[in-house]
């Protein structure tokens, strides 16, 4: 393991308690604002002192409250990219990048900076001052400055949040590219779901100062362990229900909102009568075409309802479908062409299928 930690800290009515293990890869810390993500990074780097716990980077303990170890920030070799970059305003791009390099001769420093300028596409901007750079250039300069000290660990605190959409896309690609050139153990903090999915093979969901779920991206995304994680992962359709039977290859749940639903078995054992939540992602709901026979595969959970709203979202459309007896709304995301082909509009009644392998049960 390249990074291992267990940390606790109480801070004006908010408390944080996290455990984390990480190999040489990129982990995305994802969670809502105020969940404690930045605080975790600051404790790892030494900028904020934890109340108790320990941190080891590589094989070296840099903090241990029990052993009285607290290695100063300057000796931790942690690269930290601040949200607003914290470039030194009185130094040029070149001087910023060269600032942390030590123990090299002048021409060796020049060679190293040149290489970093090249990787971060800043080669012609080395004589500029930070206020003469665009947001994206500042960010790349800050990244180059961080990489210059050959950090053992790279911490990126919402690196793209201050940039516009197009720049963001390009810089995400840059980051993936740079990470493949310098494969450093990296933690990236974000509250942007798309970014989390794009950059992290592993995702840890932070909520209320704790890691609520950590694992492979697909696991967290499609198999959330709690309602909150499901919500953060963009699952809008979360319902309450009661287990009717859990013996067969599938679980049958009855829900006051949408009736009886069949779902795949989850890893956890379920017993009849147990209260559970279940959810389905908006893009996994299938609209049944009225002119076709219902395929056996989609026969399971068929619901009928009336479309109450249609909203465009770029390449996809969001529909809300009123189903069941109450006012339950099902959120459905469909590609534009499907919407056009089926002529879906407000007020139309349609049938949809929640395929059971896409219905996920949260105990």
């Amino acid at each position, binding site marked *: 393991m390249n990074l291992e930690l267990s940390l606790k800290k109480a801070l004006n009515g908010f408390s944080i308690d996290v455990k984390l293990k990480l190999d040489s890869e990129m982990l995305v810390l994802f969670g809502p604002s105020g969940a404690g993500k930045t605080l975790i990074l600051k404790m790892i780097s030494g*900028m904020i002192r934890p109340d108790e716990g320990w941190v080891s980077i590589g094989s070296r303990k840099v903090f241990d409250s029990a052993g009285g170890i607290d290695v100063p920030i300057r000796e931790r070799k942690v690269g930290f990219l601040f949200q607003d970059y914290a470039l030194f305003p*009185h130094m040029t791009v070149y001087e910023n990048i060269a600032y*942390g390099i030590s123990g090299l001769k002048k021409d060796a420093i020049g060679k190293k900076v040149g290489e970093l300028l090249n990787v971060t596409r800043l080669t012609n901007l080395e004589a500029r001052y930070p206020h003469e750079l665009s947001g994206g250039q500042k960010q790349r300069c800050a990244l180059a400055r961080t990489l210059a000290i050959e950090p053992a660990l790279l911490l990126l605190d919402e690196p793209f949040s201050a940039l516009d959409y197009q720049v963001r896309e390009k810089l995400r690609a840059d980051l993936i590219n740079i990470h493949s050139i310098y494969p450093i153990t990296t933690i990236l903090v974000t509250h942007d779901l798309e970014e989390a999915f794009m950059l992290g093979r592993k995702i840890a969901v932070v909520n209320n100062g704790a890691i609520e779920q950590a694992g492979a991206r697909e696991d967290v995304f499609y198999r959330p362990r709690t309602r909150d994680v499901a919500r953060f992962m963009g699952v809008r359709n979360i319902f309450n229900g009661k287990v009717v039977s859990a013996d067969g290859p599938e679980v049958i749940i009855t829900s006051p909102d949408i009736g009886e639903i069949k779902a795949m078995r989850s890893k956890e054992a379920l017993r009849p009568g147990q209260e559970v939540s279940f959810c389905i992602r908006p893009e996994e709901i299938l609209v049944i075409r009225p002119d076709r026979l219902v395929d056996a595969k989609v026969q399971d959970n068929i619901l009928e309802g009336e479309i109450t709203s249609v909203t465009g979202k770029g390449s996809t459309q969001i529909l809300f479908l009123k189903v069941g007896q109450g006012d339950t709304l099902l959120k459905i995301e469909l590609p534009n062409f499907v919407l056009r082909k089926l002529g879906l509009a407000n007020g139309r009644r349609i049938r949809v299928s929640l395929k059971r392998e896409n219905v996920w049960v949260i105990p």
Partner: protein
Amino acid sequence: MDLFPLFLTVKVSFFATALAASIGLFLAWAMAKREFFGKNILDVLIMQPLVIPPTVLGYYLLTLFGRSSPLGAFLEDTLGVQIVFTWKGAVIASMISSMPLFVKPARASLESVGKELEDAARLLGKTEFQVFKTITLPLAWRGIAAGVVMAFARATGEFGATLMIAGNIPGVTQTLPIAIFDAVQSGDNLSANLLVGVITLFSFLVLYAANRFTRGRL
């Protein structure tokens, strides 16, 4: 005309400002960047000369450095240094009086250099002294320079405390403001007018230069 008071004032102000700036820079840094016990009390103490009467300050200094105090006796008997009724006394009086005028802007400009920038330097492997030298100081120098100018201007005008501790000995401790007082007292209006003209012009030039220098950031 006797120009001694002018030379003495420049000499005293120079040393007083140099001392106030070096001690004051450390105090300003500690108060801007560190948390410690008694920080508020220290702040109040440094700012005192702005509000207490200069004669009171002078009385304190006279008591502290006089021969009857342990410190005064030690300085005089062991080190052979006499403070009271010498130009060194005038330096100390001016230094204490001008300290708050240096510390206030210096502290504010040191505080304006964000912790994030300093942390960025620490993360890049720098010691506290390196952080101060390469990040904090270069970014805060305008406020510090303003403080130096203000302290110098204050030191040249120091009267009450200087009179108390250094006295009014012509040719020894008679600074410009004291010489003006003396001239007016003895009805020598010509000297008084000349000296007043000199010090007015001098103060005007100092503040004008300071404003140009710091672009109105005082």
